[in-house]
């Protein structure tokens, strides 16, 4: 499903990076860096909610009139979003589509704003240790990493979406469908997410009657090194054209050499977009595709093929 929006803008953002491990590309531009996995809290789960609270609080103090918070994260029952929003006494929507949560939030916010004037905060967070504990093994457990494993980025990003004119205009969005292949390996999320990413990109281009060259940049979520290659090949098979203007935020997130195939997590895409792509001032028309692998520990144990979802939003950046 593709929607068009008239005057919906991303007015401001506040980003927080919680780990400098492997030297992320966003370090020079990120609003705040806290190298602390605990933030004085009892557990890492509560620390993640603190990250999100900091980013929402900044935007709330700056813009005062906030009508709604839409937030999502990777924890069970989106605990950290709920805890963070509980501090503000504002209407809240909690969403979950794994690493595509931020884009899903923006799509919901844009659809609401398109019809009535309001300010909506879209927020997301991820925490390396929480994801390790939740989806993989205990943090200190010495599991041998595969080459396809991704390393969850720690941090939080909140953005305020309004009717008021600003540099970043949201002009269209496409909601993707859930794809499922035979792929069952939860270590390799890139291969699970690549088909849904290619399908939503294909659907967006088809629905809007645009060619790939219409966009200066297609920024995908967290496919990683191998997932990006698979996505390009898959897209070529279903669409017939090859992709050249695509960057994967997970793939470029870490500058230092490491054992992983890239970064992942819901905070990865917004961090790269706001703090690496926008400051470059090089791209005018950008398509953001959030990719989410919707597996859980139960689905992995049941050996269900991994379902995955992607959503896309078209942006016009003017700076």
């Amino acid at each position, binding site marked *: 499903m593709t929607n068009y929006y008239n005057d919906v803008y991303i007015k401001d953002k506040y980003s927080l990076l919680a780990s400098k491990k492997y030297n992320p590309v966003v370090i020079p531009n990120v609003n705040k860096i806290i190298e602390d996995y605990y933030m004085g809290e009892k557990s890492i789960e509560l620390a993640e909610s603190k990250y999100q609270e900091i980013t929402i609080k900044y935007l709330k103090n700056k813009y005062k009139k906030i009508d709604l918070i839409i937030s999502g994260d990777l924890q069970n029952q989106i605990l950290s979003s709920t805890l963070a929003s509980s501090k503000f006494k504002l209407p809240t929507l909690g969403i979950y589509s794994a690493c595509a949560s931020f884009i899903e939030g923006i799509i919901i916010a844009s659809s609401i704003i398109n019809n009535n004037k309001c300010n909506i905060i879209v927020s997301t967070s991820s925490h390396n240790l929480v994801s390790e*504990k939740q989806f993989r093994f205990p943090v200190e457990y*010495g599991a*041998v990493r595969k080459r396809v494993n991704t390393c969850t980025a720690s941090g939080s990003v909140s953005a305020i979406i309004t009717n008021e004119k600003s540099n970043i205009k949201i002009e269209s969005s496409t909601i993707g469908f859930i794809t499922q*292949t035979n792929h069952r390996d939860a270590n390799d999320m890139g*291969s699970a997410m690549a088909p849904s990413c290619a399908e939503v990109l294909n659907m967006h281009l088809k629905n809007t009657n645009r060619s790939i060259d219409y966009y200066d940049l297609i920024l995908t979520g967290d496919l990683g090194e191998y997932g990006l290659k*698979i996505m390009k090949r898959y897209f070529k098979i279903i669409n017939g054209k090859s992709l050249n203007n695509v960057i994967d935020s997970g793939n470029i997130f870490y500058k230092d050499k490491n054992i992983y195939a890239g970064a992942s997590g819901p905070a990865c895409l917004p961090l790269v977009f706001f703090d690496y792509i926008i400051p470059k001032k090089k791209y005018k028309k950008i398509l953001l595709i959030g990719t989410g692998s919707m597996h859980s520990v139960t689905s992995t144990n049941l050996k269900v093929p991994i379902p995955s979802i992607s959503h896309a939003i078209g942006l016009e950046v003017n700076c």
Partner: protein
Amino acid sequence: MKNEEYDKLIKEIVVEDNIVGNIIISFFSGGLIGLIGEIISNFIFKNFNTTLSDSYMITFMIFIFIGSLLTGLGFFDKILSVCKCGLIVPSTGFANTMTSSAMDTRSEGFIKGIGSSIFKLTGSIILYGIVFGIIFGFIRGMLL
């Protein structure tokens, strides 16, 4: 695209881990741990007044202590990324599994956190260790 075709596409692009290399590294690192264990147990057997089986037991406990300590200090997973499975198969791996589960759930309390989760990963090792111990013990008793 059909699922089988997609599987083929993944296989083409994703670079497989070097399993043979990992096995060779594990063989030597595991052997090294065994050698160290043998030296320690021989040392205990010769210098302290113990039986041979007691000295093995003490060595076992020393390894569990070292494994837990390194896990607690956060070094174990770093050493393991170099040594591969050579560290998991001996008792150090067992200690690492239990300690890491306990550390993860410490914040959830002693009963519902540590108490219920410490055997989360090791439970299957213990259960099937006992089951196969019984089966093979039975076979041994029947044959000998």
